[in-house]
C-alpha cells in the first residue's frame, strides 16, 4: 500500500452515530495530521498528533497513533450532517528538512440526517 492510505474509502452512517476512519503509513514520521475537505473546497486542519503521542482529543474528535503498527485512527463522536466531507491523514517525515506532508487517499464520510 502507499504511504498514507485510509480505510474505508467511503463511509455512510446515521446522524448521531460515531464514525471511525483509519490511516496506515509506511515510513517513519514526525507527526501525523488529519484534514477535512468539503467537496471541491480547501483543506481544513483538524488535529496534529506527534510521533511520541498515542492519543489526542479535540472536541468531538479523538485521534490515536500506533507507531509500531504505523497506523492512526480518527473517531468523530455524535456525528452531525455538517461532518459530511472527505477526511485525509497526512504524515510529516521524520528526517530534518523533510517536513512535506504525504497525504492519504481519503475517506468520504456521509452523514445521513
Amino acid at each position, binding site marked *: 500500500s502507499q504511504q498514507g492510505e485510509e480505510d474505508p474509502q467511503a463511509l455512510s452512517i446515521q446522524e448521531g452515530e460515531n464514525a471511525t476512519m483509519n490511516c496506515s503509513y509506511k515510513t517513519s514520521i514526525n507527526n501525523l495530521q488529519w484534514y477535512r475537505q468539503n467537496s471541491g473546497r480547501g483543506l481544513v*486542519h483538524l488535529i496534529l498528533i506527534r510521533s511520541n503521542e498515542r492519543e489526542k482529543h479535540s472536541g468531538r474528535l479523538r485521534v490515536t497513533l500506533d507507531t509500531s503498527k504505523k497506523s492512526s485512527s480518527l473517531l468523530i463522536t455524535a456525528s452531525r450532517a455538517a461532518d459530511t466531507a472527505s477526511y485525509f491523514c497526512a504524515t510529516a517525515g521524520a528526517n530534518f528538512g523533510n517536513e512535506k*506532508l504525504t*497525504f492519504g487517499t*481519503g475517506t468520504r464520510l456521509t452523514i445521513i440526517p
Partner: protein
Amino acid sequence: EPEVTQTPSHQVTQMGQEVILRCVPISNHLYFYWYRQILGQKVEFLVSFYNNEISEKSEIFDDQFSVERPDGSNFTLKIRSTKLEDSAMYFCAERGTSVQETQYFGPGTRLLVL
C-alpha cells in the same frame, strides 16, 4: 485557525500560457509549500520553500514550475507553459518555525487548462 489566502480562486487558461498563482502569507510563518490535487485524486506535494530557497521539490515540479517570494511578500507559483494535465486545484500551505507545527492550507486555486 490562521487564515491563508490565495488568489485567484479560479483561473482558466489556454494550453501553453503562463499562469501565476499567489498566496498571501501569515506574518510569522516561515515555511511555505505548494501542493496540488487533480480532481478525484489525492493531494500531492510540489515544493517547499524556506529562507528564499527551495528546500525540497517533487518529481512533478519540473522546469516549467518556479516559486518565489519577492521581498517577503506574496508567495507565488508560476507555471511557464501550461499543459492540459496541469489542470488541478493548487493549494499553498504555511507553518511557523517548529517542525511539529500544523501546516495551514489556503482555500486553493482551481486551474483549468484548455
